[in-house]
């Protein structure tokens, strides 16, 4: 698996040499989910006149941001053959930490740093439990899912914390139309891609996910790398939590409940394999956009509440199925 993916990245970067139609078809082949996204956008544009407007597309971007940022983090875990179920809770805990520090008179920049540190610390604990405690990632992060949510409730005393305006600008727009959450999403996407492609840790993720034993034998310090991986997932969750709280101008202890499932769905729709070794930042972004476009479209078309859940399930299954079939072909 690892060997399949790595050359793919290198091929992407090789300049010239291919004629455009070939490049396009290869691009689609490597990004099966992108085809599904384009199909959905075209379909929705026909079904609703309100879909393909600049404002609505920006809305979709904003609504995808939190899931996407969570999912970028989860990509690291999944590529390395693990999983992280705690990202929703860690996001809520980090958001509450930001709100709590903000109301305690801590300088805002420091509150941001400490909120991200909180998420990173949760991730480190996950990493320690997994690499040194030898817990399966599923169990370690399931424990954190509960513990971090509990800490969020303890710190907030169960009630939402209203954020000062010095924080909530992150959820607003610059000028009239440029939404900050979208900028944060794009920046995090670039960071994810750079980590995966350019860093030692990124290559270690593919290697560990492909074959942990082989990675170990080839000299990768697997345990230390796992600490890095889960700490990164935690840091990304914290950023997502900050964006979510800022959008509402309120840090909520029950925020992002269940978002870990959306994040995992986004990663898998984006072409990553739950078996590890495969996955890309761009794929995850497309996966998160598919979910956001879908929810937006269902609202625009005023689909009934009961059917929405059916449609969301069906589209997730179809998107992954399309991708699997394309790979096999």
């Amino acid at each position, binding site marked *: 698996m690892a060997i399949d993916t790595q050359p793919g990245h290198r091929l992407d970067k090789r300049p010239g040499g291919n004629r455009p139609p070939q490049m396009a078809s290869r691009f689609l082949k490597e990004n099966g989910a992108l085809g599904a996204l384009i199909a959905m956008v075209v379909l929705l544009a026909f079904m609703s006149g309100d879909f393909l407007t600049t404002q609505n597309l920006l809305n979709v971007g904003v609504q995808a941001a939190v899931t996407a940022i969570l999912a970028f983090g989860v990509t690291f875990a999944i590529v390395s053959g693990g999983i992280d179920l705690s990202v929703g809770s860690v996001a809520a805990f980090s958001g509450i930490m930001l709100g709590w520090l903000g109301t305690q008179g801590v300088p805002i920049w420091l509150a941001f740093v400490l909120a991200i540190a909180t998420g990173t610390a949760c991730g480190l604990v996950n990493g320690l439990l997994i690499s040194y405690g030898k817990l399966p990632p599923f169990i370690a992060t399931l424990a954190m899912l509960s513990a971090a949510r509990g800490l969020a409730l303890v710190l907030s005393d169960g009630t939402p914390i209203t954020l000062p305006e010095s924080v909530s600008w992150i959820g607003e727009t610059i000028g009239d139309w440029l939404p900050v959450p979208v900028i944060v999403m794009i920046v995090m996407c670039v960071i994810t891609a750079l980590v995966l492609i350019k860093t030692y840790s990124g290559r270690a993720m593919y290697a560990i996910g492909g074959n942990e034993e082989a990675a170990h034998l080839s000299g990768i310090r697997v345990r230390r790398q796992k600490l890095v991986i889960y700490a990164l997932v935690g840091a990304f969750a914290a950023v997502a939590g900050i964006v979510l709280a800022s959008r509402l101008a309120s840090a909520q202890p029950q925020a992002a409940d269940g978002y870990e499932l959306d994040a995992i769905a986004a990663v898998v729709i984006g072409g990553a394999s739950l078996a590890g070794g495969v996955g890309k930042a761009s794929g995850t972004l497309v996966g998160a956009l598919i979910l956001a476009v879908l929810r937006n479209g269902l609202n*625009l078309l005023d689909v009934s509440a009961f059917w929405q859940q059916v449609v969301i399930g069906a589209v997730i299954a179809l998107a992954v199925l399309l991708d699997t079939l394309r790979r096999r072909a």
Partner: protein
Amino acid sequence: MSKRKSTSAVVLATAVVLTASACGTGSGSGDGKKKIKLGFAISALNQPFMVQMKDGAEAEAKRQGADLTVQDAQEDASTQANQVQNFTSKNVKALIINPVDSDAAGPSVKAANNANIPVIAADRGVNKADIETTVASDNVEGGKLAAKSLADQLGGKGEILVLRGQVGTSSSRERAKGFNEGIKKYPGIKIVAKQPADFLRAKGLDVTTNVMQSHPNIDGIFAENDEMALGAAKALGSKAGGDVKIVGFDGTPETLKAVKKGSISSTVAQQPDELGKMAVRNAIRIVEDSTVDPKIKVPVKVVTKKNVDRYS
């Protein structure tokens, strides 16, 4: 103002009638008898709603001279099961339970049934056990009041969006039922979209943003709870409460502030203290062998900018 006065007059009158009837049946047992021992197992005292319910129950018990013991399960169903068991072995005359979980409370309530202790459910029901009565907010009436409040503020015409709660929950169902019945009286009002936002603020924000794209001329929003209403207000920004009227449900402190500020036009407030009082009042009636309705609805009230000061 006058509406609130008349509502409180009705509540007062009901209370007087109920007290009179309670005293009437109670007088037979005489003053020499020992105080009635009641147990109240409450789900969690970490929310203002539950604390107010407890305060109401204690006030009513004091007024009627009953001996009420309150236990806090801290949102843990097994702690609550132990507490109910302890109440049963202490031989309380009646037990009020505000279940952590309607299903999980079943077995321990059944044990109380076997010990012939009457059980009253408060705020939430209990499944698979015998309950004398369930005392809860009147969500259907609340939905009707919300419809009337929204329609009045829109002058009886306009396009509205309904933000639905978690699909399948009883509170969402009942509030929707009341709202739909209430809004039928205003043929000028058209529900142009009805979308789920799961009782969550973040989803209320996203769904409202989306629907405003397909229906930019919306005049009003009914949210089945306050959290979604606050999300809708965030989505609408400066339009909230002005160009677009928003009506919520619950009367949480944050929403009352928003009502005062004007971004939320009105909310249907529940009365947790009244809920606690009604639970104790009916527990005593049952101990004194009166029959009670199997479902007791606690009235809800509409809070607007005019009367918000009396609630916050």
